[in-house]
């Protein structure tokens, strides 16, 4: 039943730190977050952990457990051997604030650049009519709990911080796809997906899909269909011709990108 687990937990702040060894009791049915809470309550009162719902619904307790990006509240201790040493480290792509807590403000900045939901202004309150089959596609993406595990694992920024400016990351490219597929959104988001948010950087290795705790098919259902829409427009013969004789015109209905271009 109960046993003692060996943990190595990253302690430190602003880039300075080390893996600290701990031995913590584990009981039947517990998840990694339970064990970190016990560590906090009994041995390391100031251990910084970000958590909230402990139910897999808020996406706060993202960390790397034995190098794998996971939610601590949904990772059961029974998935590890009792004599296995658990190495728990903060998300690698984002700057460490302290211990297991990282600065994820990059994601909030990207969120604020994406042109918002743009409905037809003539539709009055309560007058929207949408079919379930049509809302379902965007609903899948709206399951996102913003844990940023996909952002953390995506090699386009994980290994290349220089891409953080041109590339929005899977979560926010999926947000663009969500709006593009929203039955009541009238903006044309193809040009901005490619030119302003770096859809082309994605080479569909599906790492984002693999770590998504909500099991959203980010690559297959959001990014690839969005790439297809972009390609449809880019290789439209008229658009191609236009781009040869002048600056490529943007599709009608393309919204301005806040902070980037009008």
């Amino acid at each position, binding site marked *: 039943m109960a046993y003692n687990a060996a943990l190595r937990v990253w302690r430190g702040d602003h880039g300075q730190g080390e893996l600290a060894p701990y031995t913590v009791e584990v*009981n*039947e*049915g*517990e*998840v990694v977050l*339970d064990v970190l809470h016990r560590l*906090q*309550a*009994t041995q390391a*009162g*100031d251990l*910084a*952990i*970000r*958590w*909230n*719902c*402990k*139910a*897999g*619904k*808020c*996406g*706060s307790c993202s960390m790397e457990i034995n190098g794998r990006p996971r939610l601590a509240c*949904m990772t*059961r201790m029974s998935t590890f051997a009792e004599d296995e040493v658990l190495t728990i480290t903060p998300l690698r792509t984002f700057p460490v*604030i*302290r*211990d297991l*807590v990282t*600065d*994820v403000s990059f994601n*909030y900045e990207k*969120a*604020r650049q994406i*042109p*918002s*939901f743009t*409905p037809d202004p003539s*539709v009055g*309150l*309560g007058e*929207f*009519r*949408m*079919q*379930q089959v049509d*809302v379902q596609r*965007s*609903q899948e993406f*709206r*399951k*996102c*709990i*913003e844990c940023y595990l996909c952002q953390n694992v995506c090699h386009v920024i994980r290994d290349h911080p220089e891409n953080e400016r041109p590339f929005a990351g899977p979560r926010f490219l999926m947000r663009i796809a969500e*709006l593009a597929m*929203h039955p009541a*959104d009238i903006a044309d988001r193809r040009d901005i997906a490619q030119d302003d948010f770096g859809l082309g950087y994605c080479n569909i290795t599906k790492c984002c899909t693999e770590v998504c705790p909500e099991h959203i098919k980010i690559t297959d259902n959001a990014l690839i269909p969005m790439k297809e829409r972009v390609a449809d427009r880019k290789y439209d013969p008229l658009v191609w011709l236009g781009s040869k004789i002048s600056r490529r015109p943007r599709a009608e209905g393309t919204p301005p990108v*806040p*902070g980037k271009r009008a």
Partner: protein
Amino acid sequence: MSDIERLPYEVVVIGAGGSGLRAAIEARLAGKRTAVISKSLFGKAHTVMAEGGCAAAMGNMNPNDNWMVHFRDTMRGGKFLNNHRMAELHAKEAPDRVYELEAWGALFDRTKDGKISQRNFGGHEYPRLAHVGDRTGLEMIRTLQQKVVALQQEDAVAHGDPEAMIKVYAETTITRLIKDGEGRIAGAFGYIRETGQFVLFQAPTVILATGGIGKTFKVSSNSWEYTGDGHALALLAGAKLINMEFVQFHPTHMVWPISVRGLLVTESVRGDGGVLRNSEGRRYMFDYVPDVFRSQYAETEEEADRWYSDPDHNRRPPELLPRDEVARANNAEVKAGRGSPHGGVFLDIASRLPAEEILKRLPSMYHQFKELADVDITKEPMEVGPAQHYVMGGVEVDPDTGESAVPGLFAAGEVSGGMHGSNRLGGNSLSDLLVFGRRAGIGAAEYVDRLGPKLPVPDEGEVEAAQAEALAPLQRTGGENPYSVHAEVQETMSNLVGIIRTEAEINQAMAELEQLRERAATASAAGGSAYNPGWHLALDLRNIMLMAQCVAAAALARQESRGGHTRDDYPGMRPEWRKIILACALDGDKIAITRQPNPPMRADLVALFDPAELKRYLTEEEMATVPAVPIRSASAVHEETH
């Protein structure tokens, strides 16, 4: 005090869940410079955990539904203790608030003709809950979050700065409200988690939208933020809390593994056909229909099952009684020795719906049981039991504006009291957040307008005291471990002031709490002020202790059983107690309980009920004033409103 950062605003909203964001959006739409203070990251608030839906009488599934039917259901659910004006405003305005979310991008599940679909829930006469599978709260918080972002994008164009008019302060905690010399709100003092930097938001209005008090109890479905911060801030600033004895124990949560005990199992499971059974396989809810609801609920399994396809000619299944009734029944079955192996009861959806339908309607529940308990809910029943879920009690506010007795202090959502009476119906929380969040936003904006250019000036003595109080746990050495004190408070409250209460146990709890409060006051935290959870908990403990004492004191005073307050030594509702509201206030540093009259319901609202039903709740003198008018039929009401 140069180490306090001062930030001037017109409206400061504490809390970034459903009510806080809705209030902030409204204040910003009214042209007020607004700060939103979030204890967590933006978009993580406890609202994300709401599953079932948002109740609004849109009538999309049954055209007989309208605000009057919703109002009646809400009053019945609260056992007629509700503030009738709040229940009225809520029922009338909820549909527009839902449509508004849709216009801001929310994608609710749809009906065949493309409208917003609505589902059945406990205590609601018609299918009424707008929903997105079983993750409605997430949809709501994301929509509001994205609306804030949309407003910031507009402000970037208009003012050159996205945060010119509305700014979110993430991972920031307020520890004290600051007043001016005249007792008006002048600001809010707190710290930023990341750095420990102290901040003073200087503002003439504060809207409390901090949610509930769940972390006062051991087994609770609430997230870590629910430490009663807004309740305590209001109390410390001189406002009154009402109805604090009424704590909702939602009937169905996971009971195993121990580490997830208290994880919510949505009422939608029952709304979509799930039934409760004991270890003998008996569908026992038929044995627990109280007299006040007898005529509205089915008496046989056959009738109950027919209701799902023909609700107009059959009565509702008793699994869909209000939450307080179902929670007591589940508790009683376990106590009688008919529980499940891990101390719960069985909730069965597997034998009631095809697997694919379960996956479609209840994806989060499937996921949660599969990943955390190795249970496949499409094949076997779930083991569930009651856990603390919600507090009906909160800051006493003006129903129309959300303003408290302290000038400039407003409250909306779970932190406010009155709307839900003694028991909240499922689905009425998300709608409450929207309706009263918006109203508090308007209320605060109008208060600012009335104030004119002469703003309240923070009392510097109060600011200094707040800083000293906040620093104390860091400066103390060798004090109590805040984690241990917290665990003991939770133990005391769950064991002695839980779902079933007695005078002797509450008295014991109050004695224990008195000692724990002294220990909490000496808690110390090792480490520095940057992102130090031990320090944060040591500060939250003050609020947790105050809430525990309020609940216990009010529970001791109310000598009857009603809604979320069950006294083993005073069983049954007593009509004379319906006329009484218990208010908590601070007298020095002690909690003082006073009785105040429950405002009588307006005649036009009284006329919505059958006098025969009112007789079960009102005293004989009150009944003498009720006109013997026949009930206005739902269909007649429908004619009037369409």
